[in-house]
């Protein structure tokens, strides 16, 4: 996404808009211009393009060759995007689509409407536009935006900041005030397949074949059905061993699999885009799942209304062994306790490998961001309280012992009922008191025993007092 200059929003930045349109029109291409824009038409003709001007707001195919570029202006933007996209896709299947948009779902517009400081902004939200484009078989190939200004509202600053942050966490589109868009034809949109679990297995350049094979072998023993595996690797990473393993394990009939290739920076996002399942999970070669791991998570989601479910996992510590299979020195379950505390989502970023998301319940929430997946449990948990399976750990994250990683979560705000906080604080206070009480009881019991032994108590008390004095100097 490119950011437009704040000083020149697209609605008035006709120069930038015109330059963009001219840059996208291929030599000699037929351009369909919907909505009055004589200046643009003239500029296109001056460059040798065949321009067909339509008054709008609808787009009509007309006679002659199908357009290579359809440019929407004025009321045509909303009309075509809302009701005419499918017809356009059918009648001009190769055409690119260009338009500018003033985002009716920007945080500024929403906050203004919420507080009554501004009328409800008419038109489409960017989120709606993105959805409509995907439904009709387009993807956004180019996007230039003007971000929302952070000007205040009638609300207190902290409250404004919190509300805006929550809107941004749920939908990055809310941070866009205006934008210019180029949409290109894409494959047919795929509705998520109900009940299907898609597991994205990411492979990096340093992934050990043996570890990946074990991860796939464990997945082959999964009981969740139906199951789709997406093996996602950057271009150039050799997957021949993994592909052979997938073919072999696939003969058990317990999953279907696909390979996803993309540049490293876009790999996870592409895998998520290609995943067909209603349910989504992430693994890498470090992970092992036990046979009922996904069954239990999916059942928990089906039994409730939560957007995601997470299980207890093992952190499996490998001792290094050159040339031999890694030796497991310890398995440490995490998170501990019967409740999932908010803190766990930050201090255990590996929980991203122990969870399943119901994509039908997260709306426009961005599963993948530029920061990767490390902060996904925290970002997701901030908006959607999960269901936690607190029984026996049902998966493993393996590796050499390392200092615990903590997810970087700057600026994340949390949605929780006040009662949940009150309960959590009360619980922690009770546990602290119980621990203190237990400690006192142990000390008292020890004291009683020592009292029973002649001269020992006096000696120990003298020693303790001396130590206390010494440490006080």
């Amino acid at each position, binding site marked *: 996404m490119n950011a437009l200059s704040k000083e020149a929003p697209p609605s008035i930045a006709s120069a930038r808009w015109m330059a963009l349109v001219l840059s996208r029109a291929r030599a000699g291409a037929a351009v369909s211009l919907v909505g009055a824009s004589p200046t643009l038409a003239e500029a296109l003709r001056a460059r040798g393009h065949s321009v067909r001007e339509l008054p709008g707001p609808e787009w009509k195919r007309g006679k002659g060759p199908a357009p290579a570029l359809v440019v929407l202006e004025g009321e045509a933007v909303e009309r075509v995007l809302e009701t005419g996209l499918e017809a356009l896709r059918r009648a001009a299947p190769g055409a690119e689509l260009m338009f500018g948009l003033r985002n009716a779902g920007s945080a500024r517009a929403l906050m203004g409407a919420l507080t009554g400081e501004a009328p409800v902004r008419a038109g489409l939200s960017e989120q709606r536009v993105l959805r409509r484009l995907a439904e009709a078989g387009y993807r956004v190939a180019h996007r230039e935006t003007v971000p929302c200004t952070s000007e205040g509202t009638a609300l207190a600053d902290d409250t404004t900041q919190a509300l805006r942050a929550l809107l941004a966490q749920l939908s990055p589109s809310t941070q866009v005030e205006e934008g210019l868009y180029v949409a290109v034809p894409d494959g047919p949109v795929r509705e998520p397949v109900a009940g299907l679990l898609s597991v994205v297995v990411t492979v990096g350049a340093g992934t050990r074949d043996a570890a990946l094979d074990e991860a796939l*072998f*464990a997945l082959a023993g999964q009981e969740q059905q139906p199951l789709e595996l997406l093996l996602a690797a950057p271009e150039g990473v050799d997957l021949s061993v993994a592909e052979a393993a997938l073919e072999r394990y696939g003969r058990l009939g317990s999953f279907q699999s696909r390979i996803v290739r993309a540049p490293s920076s876009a790999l996870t996002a592409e895998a998520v885009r290609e995943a067909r399942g209603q349910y989504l999970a992430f693994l890498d070669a470090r992970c*092992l799942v*036990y046979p009922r791991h996904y069954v239990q998570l999916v059942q928990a989601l089906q039994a409730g209304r939560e957007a995601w479910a997470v299980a207890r996992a093992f952190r499996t510590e490998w*001792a290094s062994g050159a040339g*031999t299979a890694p*030796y497991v020195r310890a398995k440490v379950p995490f998170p501990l306790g019967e409740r999932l505390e908010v803190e766990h989502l930050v201090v255990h970023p590996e929980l991203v490998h122990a969870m399943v998301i119901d994509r039908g319940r997260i709306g426009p929430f961005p599963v993948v961001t530029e920061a990767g997946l490390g902060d996904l449990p925290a970002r997701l948990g901030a908006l959607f309280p999960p269901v936690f399976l607190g029984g026996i750990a049902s998966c493993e994250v393996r590796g050499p012992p390392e200092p615990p990683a903590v997810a970087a979560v700057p600026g994340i705000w949390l949605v929780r009922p006040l009662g949940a906080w009150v309960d959590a604080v009360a619980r922690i206070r009770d546990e602290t008191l119980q621990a203190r009480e237990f400690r006192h009881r142990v000390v008292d019991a020890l004291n009683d025993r020592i009292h029973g032994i002649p001269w020992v108590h006096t000696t120990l008390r003298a020693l303790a007092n001396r130590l206390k004095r010494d440490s006080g100097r």
Partner: protein
Amino acid sequence: MRGPASADGGAPGIWLGIVLYRNPERELERLWESLRWNLEAPGAPAFRVVWLDNSPDDALRARVALLDADADYRHAGSNLGFGAAHNRLMAEAFGAGGARYYVCVNPDGLLHPDCVRELAREADRRADTGLVEARLFPDEHPKPYDPATGETTWCSGCVLLVTRGLHARVGGFDERFFMYCEDVDLSWRARASGLSIRVAPAALVHHYTVTREASPVRERMVRRSAALLGAKYGDAAFMNARLREYAQLGGEPFRTPEVLKPGRRLEGIADFGHHLEFARRRW
């Protein structure tokens, strides 16, 4: 199923014995597919598969034949129990069969493609090998083993390679154990006779029982076998504790086993200090 020809062009030197008891069709299909992986694996040794069915009838004969038209399926006629059934196959394998190795294979396991090859490779590594077990996967058994040598305290019978040498020196399983703990007993006897028992870390068997539905019958069977193990190795306290648990689980009374004196060597090996784990846990 035989796989690639053996080096001398004769019968395979490895027998895989599978003891059945009313197994679900899907379980057998999965096991069979994993055995095919093992035949296709690079450097895979030849092996022969023999099925011995302890079920009340031979209904599984047709199911096994669907998997392999040439299957060597035998119906035991009655439920011999785990150890006795394997003993019968082992005797044949090391007798007329001329096998080097016999591998007990649990039918509810899924063998990794390299499992048989890695078991044989590990067994070949030392002349004094008695037993080699596959590593349980994905939830590895927490009993310890030496990461450098693979030496361990006892070997699980889930997928267990038995050498001809062990069979000649200590025999097979003690048939008084109907099911459970016979593998611990065989392991201790093997160690007492100076044989090496090891884990092959690269030989994986997918076998997960932690979330298996609780079965009082199985729990009673485990306690009864454990009590017998305690008696056999002279630990009356362990035996009595298991018998109490057996009774609490509603087990039918049976004749209390006689507490024996197994001798200093076996007593030094037997480990009853870790309840039913028979070894300290790594985690």
